[in-house]
């Protein structure tokens, strides 16, 4: 090990000096010495001690519950009752449940409506912030302010702004001769309103991540491109975007995970009928359905099955993304 080699070389005192207990020599007095054993134990075991809190916490509050949820999903369980083996019945009954398919579709559509514009706008915003600016500190903190706002606070504010009868958004639309739009009970407007909350909270955050990646792109790439006569737009498309592709992939993955588990926004947006995702389930997501099954209906087995479907979905999405990124790397000739 590099450590001990260095210790020997660096620690050599003048030959005449008696080994003091504090010097490394004192530690190597004999293979059986207590200090030496302690020292070796310290070096060998301490890394595991340092990582133990994470893995213990994960085992107790992550892995064990995850597996137990899988076991529950194969049972019929009610809150406080004894589980009864049901095999895959919870899953097959999900497959024939209209509510499940509605929730799955809603999760997907809200996910797309909230993620795609969010990341595109974040790219544009990052590009703007990358110019030499007056007051750039202000702009950066301003676009990050929504990130400091909680899901609950943001949703309660937006629920007022989007209110069909008196909300400011319909007020503005009315001025320009549109509307009134029913932002709550009709499906697409409601989903757009909820996606707006998600987009508002996360666009600035993603923009700052892109900005950091853009600033790490080597300047000579741009110089070469502009020598070749590439316009600014062309440079953005063929230099900036490919250079920050790993960062883009990172944000896509994080946003997808977030979209799959969307819960607070639709719940609070729906007010008293939030858990069912509006009066007609028009914006009930998988998370909401899971909560409804588990804590309103009390069918924990069913709720667990939904949780595992979400895990399967995430694994599927992760697999597709891994394939896409490998394909991209090949195409680049890497």
């Amino acid at each position, binding site marked *: 090990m590099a450590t001990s080699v260095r210790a020997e070389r660096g620690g050599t005192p003048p030959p005449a000096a008696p080994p003091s207990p504090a010097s490394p020599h004192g*530690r190597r007095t004999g293979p059986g010495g207590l200090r030496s054993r302690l020292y070796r134990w310290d*070096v060998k075991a301490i890394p595991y001690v340092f990582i133990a*809190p*994470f893995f213990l916490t994960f085992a107790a509050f992550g892995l064990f519950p995850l597996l137990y949820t899988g076991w529950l999903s194969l049972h019929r369980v009610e809150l406080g009752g004894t589980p009864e083996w049901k095999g895959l019945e919870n899953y097959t009954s999900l497959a024939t449940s209209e509510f499940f398919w509605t929730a799955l579709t809603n999760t997907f559509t809200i996910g797309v409506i909230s993620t795609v514009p969010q990341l595109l706008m974040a790219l544009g915003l990052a590009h703007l912030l*990358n110019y030499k600016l007056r007051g750039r500190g202000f702009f950066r903190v301003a676009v990050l302010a929504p990130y400091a706002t909680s899901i609950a606070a943001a949703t309660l504010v937006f*629920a*007022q702004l989007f209110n069909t009868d008196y909300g400011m958004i319909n007020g503005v639309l009315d001025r320009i001769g549109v509307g009134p739009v029913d932002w709550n009970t009709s499906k697409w407007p409601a989903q757009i309103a909820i996606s707006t909350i998600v987009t508002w909270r996360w666009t600035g955050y993603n923009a700052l991540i892109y900005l950091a990646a853009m600033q790490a792109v080597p300047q000579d790439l741009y110089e070469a491109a502009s020598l070749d006569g590439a316009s600014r737009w062309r440079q953005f498309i063929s230099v900036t975007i490919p250079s920050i592709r790993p960062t883009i992939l990172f944000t896509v993955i994080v946003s997808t995970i977030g979209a799959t*588990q969307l819960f607070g926004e639709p719940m609070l947006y729906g007010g008293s009928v939030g858990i069912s995702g509006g009066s007609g389930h028009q914006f009930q997501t998988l998370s909401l359905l899971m909560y409804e099954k588990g804590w309103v209906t009390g069918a924990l087995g069913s709720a667990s099955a939904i949780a595992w479907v979400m895990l399967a979905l995430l694994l599927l999405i992760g697999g597709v993304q891994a394939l896409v990124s490998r394909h991209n790397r090949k195409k680049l000739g890497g």
Partner: protein
Amino acid sequence: MARTPDTAPPGTAPRAPAEPAGRPPRRRFRQTAGRQHHAGPLTYVLLVVAALVSLFPLYWNVVAASHTGDRVVQAPAPLLPGSRLLDNLSFAWDQVDMGEALVNTAIVASLVAASTVLFSTLAGFAFAKLPFKGRGMLLSLVVATMTIPPQLSVIPLYQIITDLGWFDQLQSVVLPSLVAAFGVFFMRQYLLEALPVELVEAARMDGAHSLRIIWHVVFPVARPAMAVLGMLVFVQAWNDFFWPFIALTPDGSPTLQVALAGLGAGNHTVDHAVVLTGALISTVPLLLVFAFLGKHIVGGITAGAVKS
């Protein structure tokens, strides 16, 4: 951070003659940080729009919290602050117990932030600088756990905290968040570059045991990243919703988010001005933190992303 030294130096020198005369020389060095064209008027217009869109809902939250509930639900929506802010605040504080929720949230967020920073620094240091068997595999495992959504664990966790009698008690939301994979990875990435392995070896040579090394070598080097991680985790814990909503109740010992969920569902009042006053109470402390430390938080977010 550590990026600047590698990108700034010699490569920039040959470009000097091509630059128009009369530019201050320091600009060349700044340009290496990216493509730094001066912004045109359109850029400013778009950025001002983006800033307005970002800030307007927060401004309107203040406006709504300063009117009566009747005024808030009346079209056209108010655009300027009214005079009821203090009345709404005192109602929210006394009748809805937002004060207690604020204290609870501060306790939870501080404990979670402190413990996450401590444990993440230890684990991050081990992953970055200490050789041990299975290091690569275990690090991949840490990263992989980041993709598991909380939905996968809440049902058993709910049963556990109910069995332990922890339902509606703050420890039920603190304990599962004592350390986060994100934090471990964040500190590992930072220490990988920031902590020279020679420092650790020199300390060992002097006979320092690992806890001494942590205290005298790792913590001083890691301090900036620990501060940033602490802020990020604090914000996250402050705003956490899904699990606290399950584990706590609005009338028991709620965090702000749980109390807000109760308000939103019409628990104490259907007065929308009071509801939005609650939202304001939950947001203002974090906005103050951002106003004072915004630059550091921005730096932390960007540093974490580039290195990952």
